[in-house]
């Protein structure tokens, strides 16, 4: 392993550790009972189970399409990592969208307002990272969309979830609407 590859691997590892630490901090800060784990009631659990099922099928279909394209010898102008991450991002969006539409995205012990602040911040952070990557010319590798483009995919995913939550929140009124 040459020194540049070693530095790159170390960078990815450090980045991953920092990412996990930030995620844990966000999970902690968005709960109102000092827990990291989200608490859902029985209906929310039931609906979320369906969401996981839909997300699983979505991921299976995405991976299936990717395999089928490979078998047919059709090459998309994207790297394999981007293809895989796109499938994951779509399935996560399906899970989140299903949860939002059925009032089970936000847990009982979650601060909804905090999450509604965190979501666009995370989206903008990913967007900024993607723009920085494109400015340094890292997006295209050998004529294909490379791994750094994943920031754009993550940003799109987060913004879709945020907009869906915003629309649903507006629709619900966020009040004690008896017939909502």
């Amino acid at each position, binding site marked *: 392993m040459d020194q540049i590859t070693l530095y790159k691997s170390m960078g990815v590892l450090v980045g991953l550790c920092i990412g996990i630490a930030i995620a844990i901090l966000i999970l902690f800060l968005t709960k109102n009972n000092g827990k990291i784990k989200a608490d859902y*009631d*029985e*209906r*929310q659990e039931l609906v979320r189970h369906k969401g996981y099922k839909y997300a699983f099928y979505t991921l299976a279909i995405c991976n299936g399409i990717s395999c089928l394209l490979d078998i047919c010898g059709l090459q998309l102008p994207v790297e394999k990592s981007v293809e895989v991450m796109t499938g994951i991002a779509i399935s996560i969006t399906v899970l989140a969208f299903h949860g939002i539409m059925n*009032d*089970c995205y936000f847990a*009982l012990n979650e601060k909804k307002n905090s999450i509604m602040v965190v979501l666009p911040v995370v989206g903008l952070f990913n967007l900024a990272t993607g723009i920085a990557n494109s400015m340094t010319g890292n997006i295209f590798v050998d004529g294909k969309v490379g791994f750094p483009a994943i920031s754009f995919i993550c940003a799109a995913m987060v913004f879709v979830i945020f907009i869906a939550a915003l629309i649903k929140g507006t629709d619900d009124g966020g009040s*004690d609407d*008896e*017939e*909502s």
Partner: protein
Amino acid sequence: MKNLKIKAARAGLDMSQDDLAKACGVSRQTINAIEKGDYNPTIKLCLSICKTLGKTLDELFWEEQ
């Protein structure tokens, strides 16, 4: 089928859906779904609702033929 008995019992105690939800440890949307007949609660949640509203299972959940 709508469960108007819960709504009536709740209104009798001047409780909102949110008050009942908090007392039972569930979301307001879950109480709303039960009242609208969109969700069948488990016996555990039924008991919790009954205890909170001071009613029996029959009074809140038994459907007359």
